[in-house]
């Protein structure tokens, strides 16, 4: 394509479902952390606050990984589903 802006962050709409396509695009952008990045860049973040945030994020990632493992360990089961098709 001649214009590079149509290469990334573009979705082609199917069957005139504009709103649904737009919502999916927003979901993709949110999962990439674009909105969060945008909101953070609206105001200047001082270096000491940035450092603090990085450390907090690191700690949170480690904690979440551990907790997910623990939960999956506790919730493990090896039996037939008593009420199939419940949810």
């Amino acid at each position: 394509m001649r214009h590079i802006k149509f290469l990334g962050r573009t979705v082609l709409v199917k069957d005139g479902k504009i709103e649904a396509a737009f919502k999916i695009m927003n979901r993709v952008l949110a999962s990439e952390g674009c909105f969060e990045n945008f909101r953070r860049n609206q105001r200047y973040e001082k270096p000491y606050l940035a450092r603090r945030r990085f450390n907090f994020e690191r700690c949170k990632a480690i904690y979440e990984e551990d907790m997910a493992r623990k939960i999956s360990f506790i919730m493990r089961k090896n039996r037939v589903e008593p009420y199939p098709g419940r949810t």
Partner: protein
Amino acid sequence: MLFKSLYFIRCQISNNLRLPCSLQQQFFHTAKPLAHKWSLSEYRKGAPRRDDGTAGLPVDFYGEKVIDYPSVDTPTTLFNGIPYESLPRLSITCTKNNTKLSLWDSKNTPMGKKSCYTEGFKGSKKGTTVAAQAAALAMCKLLKLLDTTTVKVIMRGLGPGRMPSIQVLEKQGINVVSITDTTDYVVTKTARPKKARRT
């Protein structure tokens, strides 16, 4: 042949002598023994490839299949008899205090502009969803007047008019081919942003 004969001998031993399993394995190795020479390059060859994140998530992950991603053939594909590249583009700029819609030709000639102000909203009323709806409605009327209802939409910025303007386009029956997001999520300009607000 060798492996077969070895296996046969092993079976005989286990039947007659009834040795413990670990002892049997010590006597005969039917598989290749472990390499004693250990090197980092050899180890790296066997390691799984590092994921650089280019593969991404499948489309199915995001629920309904209502979107398609652009491909190599997209600029030449026809939409309502017009190739994608020469379609008029409708750029929607959503800011905190305003929503602006402008229609452009494929040759970068402006065809029409609408904003919340042109619809009679002034001051802080411009930064509302109702004002955005009114502006989008006016733009839809203009599109129908110019008979260019097949457009590609370019969204820019996060604001209150982001969602309502799209909803109006759908309700008015505009044939939107694609939606592009061109917001600067990663700030590349050298100017330092405003000072943080006091809390």
